[in-house]
């Protein structure tokens, strides 16, 4: 039975943005700090650190989840995707990211990475979302700049464009 002692670092192996990685963490290290400080992926933001604000939302095994409510050691063997994996190529934005820019769906940008990760997963599962469902889904994210109106507009616009692209393909 593997018992990881509190005062040492232990290696954690998992898939990160499609690549296999191994890095060391103390048992108490949060996944947010592991991603940002140990692995250098600072796109995942740290807001409230108790699961309320949604800024740290990432994907674990295909579903959006709070990195701040996860210990680094818990993702051993899991597949993790962060905001760094959203753009299809350097210098290019995803359809959802483009829509955020077009609709001015961000101002300070602190909440944006988490919202994009949540919406990216949501639009994959719900290609034709209704506005009330989208708004309810966004209740898991706090944005203090935009008032959510442009975020909802961007998500609906991105959903429409993604449907058109899928239809065209």
């Amino acid at each position, binding site marked *: 039975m593997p018992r990881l002692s509190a005062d040492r670092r232990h290696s954690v192996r998992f898939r990160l943005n499609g690549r296999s990685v191994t890095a060391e963490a103390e048992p108490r290290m949060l996944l947010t700090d592991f991603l940002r400080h140990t692995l250098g992926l600072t796109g995942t933001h740290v807001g409230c650190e108790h699961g309320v604000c*949604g800024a740290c939302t990432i994907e674990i095994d295909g579903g959006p989840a709070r990195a*701040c409510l996860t210990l680094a050691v818990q993702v051993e063997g899991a597949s993790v995707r962060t905001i760094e994996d959203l753009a299809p190529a350097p210098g290019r934005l995803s359809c959802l990211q483009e829509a955020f820019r077009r609709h001015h769906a961000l101002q300070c940008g602190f909440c944006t990475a988490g919202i994009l990760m*949540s919406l990216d997963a949501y639009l994959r599962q719900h290609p034709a979302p209704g506005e009330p469902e989208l708004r309810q889904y966004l209740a898991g994210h706090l944005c203090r700049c935009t008032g959510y109106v442009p975020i909802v507009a961007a998500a609906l616009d991105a959903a429409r464009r993604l449907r058109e692209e899928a239809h065209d393909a």
Partner: protein
Amino acid sequence: MKPPRFDYVRALSLAEAHAVLAAEGGDACVIAGGQTLVPMLSMRLARPHVLVDIMRLSALARIEAVDGAIDVGAAVRQSELLAWPQLAAGQPLLAAALPWVGHAQTRNRGTVCGSVAHADPSAELPLVLVALGGSITLSSRRRRRTVAADQFFLGPMATARGDDELIRSVAFPMARPRHGYAFREFGRRHGDFAIVACAAVVTHATTRLAVGGVADRPVARDWGSITGGALDDALNELAYDLDAREDMHATARFRRHLVRQLGHQTITEARRCLA
């Protein structure tokens, strides 16, 4: 806010998990999805010496319909139960309440049994368990036992679980013929803790209402087929009996108001489902 230091055991068998709990007792905490425990650690409200991760135990990852109940193992995530194809027909009350548990992003990690273990007085799953008369199965190195929901929740974050025990599964009784079920909740924002939540189970002759978010645990009350002024009086009496407290979210008076209004609406909806 960073958690204090603790050892971490990734249990590979139930016996291993039992052994750690038997040896460390109250200094050990079981971690499943961690959606309540990790913030408790970060805020240092919990200071265990060791965490026992039970998510590798495939025997605990099952949802089964057995003996007229939906048996949900300790490693089943809330989103998995929500996606279980038999849920809506199996127990509509559970299907109605689950989307109110946290947010989609926390349901993807949080477990059903974890919410029951934490026993927050305003949590939805303990409320549903009490409303339906469900049960909790605990196991330890020395024994295995099943506790009725109304005996399990003892107060805010206090349960009948012993220090050496882990929750193995919880059983939600399945929907029965000629029964109506309904769930309603009032909060400031979807996904926040309920200020008041109500679950109703009715037949043509009986009315059962369970209320969360008001007393120190979910409380159920049974009546006959009361209507009109008698129902209003009964709900008013219940609202006062629950001994509502004032906090930063709501006054005691507002909570009593919600018990009367939401209670009435929930019972009415359950009776509509019955018809």
